[in-house]
């Protein structure tokens, strides 16, 4: 856990996604690793520049789906075979074709809830406070029309003057320090 005081990072603001992606690629080439882009809509090229490829959301979703299928299947079997057996027109107690439908629905239910809540949890949300909100220009642009690159202070490559002058080589609208 990094200390929650002092400088969080250096935040550069760009007008276009192209400038952001270029700056991110260059920052990576210069050895920066702990950095993040903030954009008003998903920019896949920025994720590529950050070398962020895989997420665990599909895995969480798959596990949820398997859990839903198992839960519903076992529940139906236990209920209709042992807990409350009923003779319905002489059909077998374990009528698995009929059990498919609720099991199918619960597979989707559990998988869907896992995907949505898994995404929220993996993103560390809800997190109402974050240092980047302290930057004076962040809230005016990051969710509207501006593109941000934040080089974080925990990166070994980070230094106040060096990182600032590095970011100022790009056509950034502004480069500001972000405090915790």
């Amino acid at each position: 856990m990094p200390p929650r005081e002092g400088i969080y990072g250096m935040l550069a603001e760009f007008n276009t996604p192209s400038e952001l992606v270029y700056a991110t690629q260059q920052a990576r080439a210069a050895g920066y690793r702990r950095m993040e882009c903030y954009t008003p809509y998903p920019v896949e090229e920025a994720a590529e520049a950050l070398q962020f490829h895989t997420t665990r959301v599909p895995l969480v979703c798959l596990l949820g789906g398997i859990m839903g299928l198992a839960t519903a299947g076992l529940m139906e079997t236990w209920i209709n075979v042992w807990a409350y057996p009923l003779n319905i027109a002489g059909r077998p107690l374990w009528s698995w074709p009929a059990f498919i439908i609720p099991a199918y629905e619960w597979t989707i239910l559990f998988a869907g809830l896992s995907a949505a809540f898994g995404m929220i949890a993996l993103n560390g949300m809800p997190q109402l406070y974050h240092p980047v909100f302290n930057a004076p220009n962040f809230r005016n642009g990051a969710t509207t029309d501006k593109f941000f690159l934040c080089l974080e202070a925990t990166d070994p490559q980070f230094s106040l003057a060096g990182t600032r002058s590095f970011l100022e080589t790009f056509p950034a609208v502004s480069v500001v320090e972000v405090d915790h």
Partner: protein
Amino acid sequence: MATKGPINDPMIDPRTGEYAVIAPGHNFKSVTQKIAGIVLTSNTPLGWFFGLMVGGGVATFLVIGVTWLFLKGVGIWGVTIPGAWGFAIINFVWWIGIGHAGTLISAILLLFKQTWRNSINRFAEAMTIFAVVCAGTFPLIHVGRPWLAYWLFPYPNTMNLWPQFRSPLAWDVFAVSTYATISIVFWYMGMIPDFGTLRDRATMPLAKAAYGFLSLGWRGSTRHWIRYESASLLLAGLSTPLVLSVHTVISFDFAVASLPGWHTTIFPPYFVAGAVYSGFAMVLTLAIPIRKFYHLEDMVTLRHLDNMAKVMLATGSIVAYGYGMEVFMAWYSASHWEFFMMWNRMFGPLGWGYWILIATNIVIPLTSLWSRKLRVNVAWLFFISIVVNTGMWFERFVIVVTSLYRDFLPSSWGTYKATKWDYMIYVGTMGLFTFLFFLFVRFLPMIPMSEIKMMLPQTKVKRVGPEAETVIERTV
């Protein structure tokens, strides 16, 4: 397709001759201002109050009707033996069918990369949720003892009583409750980035706090976006089989029974197509006045209306095939009961319902929607959307009532006549739907801002810097 409209129409893309999905000249800022402005303004339009009051006023019918129902029991309705299913089931199937277009737009069209859907998916999803709310009311109040409706769910109880999973009615509980849950989750998840935008643009402290809380602290981080996109695609992939299964399961409520007119294998596909047909009609009924009232013609363009009309044409044709196949099978099966049921459906005492259905679901829409001129004629489309919604209600009326009221033994024949309470509760749900929809357009972003931004030409990432020679086109 060649350009047929005026050549200088700025809404027509000269390359394809199609209407543009978004009017030219928009940028990230203007899109945000336009959509967020509707929610964050302090000047609520008077028309909004009027609409909310009308919706709320009509919804009181539902409150009165349901109160009287709880006091008196289902005897106040027109349901009898043999017509044991009436308005409640008709309305249930009608409402839930309307909801299906929302999921189709948000899930299936996302998987097919139909980006035009981005303008209309949010309010189509809202429509889904409110329609499911209206639909869910009916089976619950139809069970006779609604205060025991929770018995439908499997839960441990001192009576040692459990559901019977070989019954389609138990399947229904699982299908509809899953559908409602997943629709709400998908809808909310899609709004998280937009809540972030609203939080950052709100000036009133209460709005800031409320949207900030709902946004869960969204800050547009790229890693978050990638996980978000991944979850969106997964939910779309899950919602697609879900939406097809829900109306299939509802059709099983009928098809599993051994009653002429219900016991057919064509029911699942024909119910799903009918659901999408009526759902798109309802999206048009809502979208046409909203885009006019809030001046959203730039984002919900004629392209959207044209495309939705095309989907209606396709699904309407499937429905028409279903009607034809029902008649054919009544003859080809050589079953005396099937044949009589079909004759009675067409020429019996309630035969007028069948002919209204044929006129409103097939004759009027399926003859006119072939014409591109009529598909982009807003007034005509609005008229067609009302016609199709009426027709789809009559379809459920015909399926439910005319199959039931004259069954195998002529001595047990009856008839069906809805009472004023049936009408009151039905009209009341329309009021509830309107009321909820008016609240939605005022307090939530009705068009997804981030998804509209993704369709703008400015999203193209070009190679910049010293070694730039080629332009990388965005592929998505």
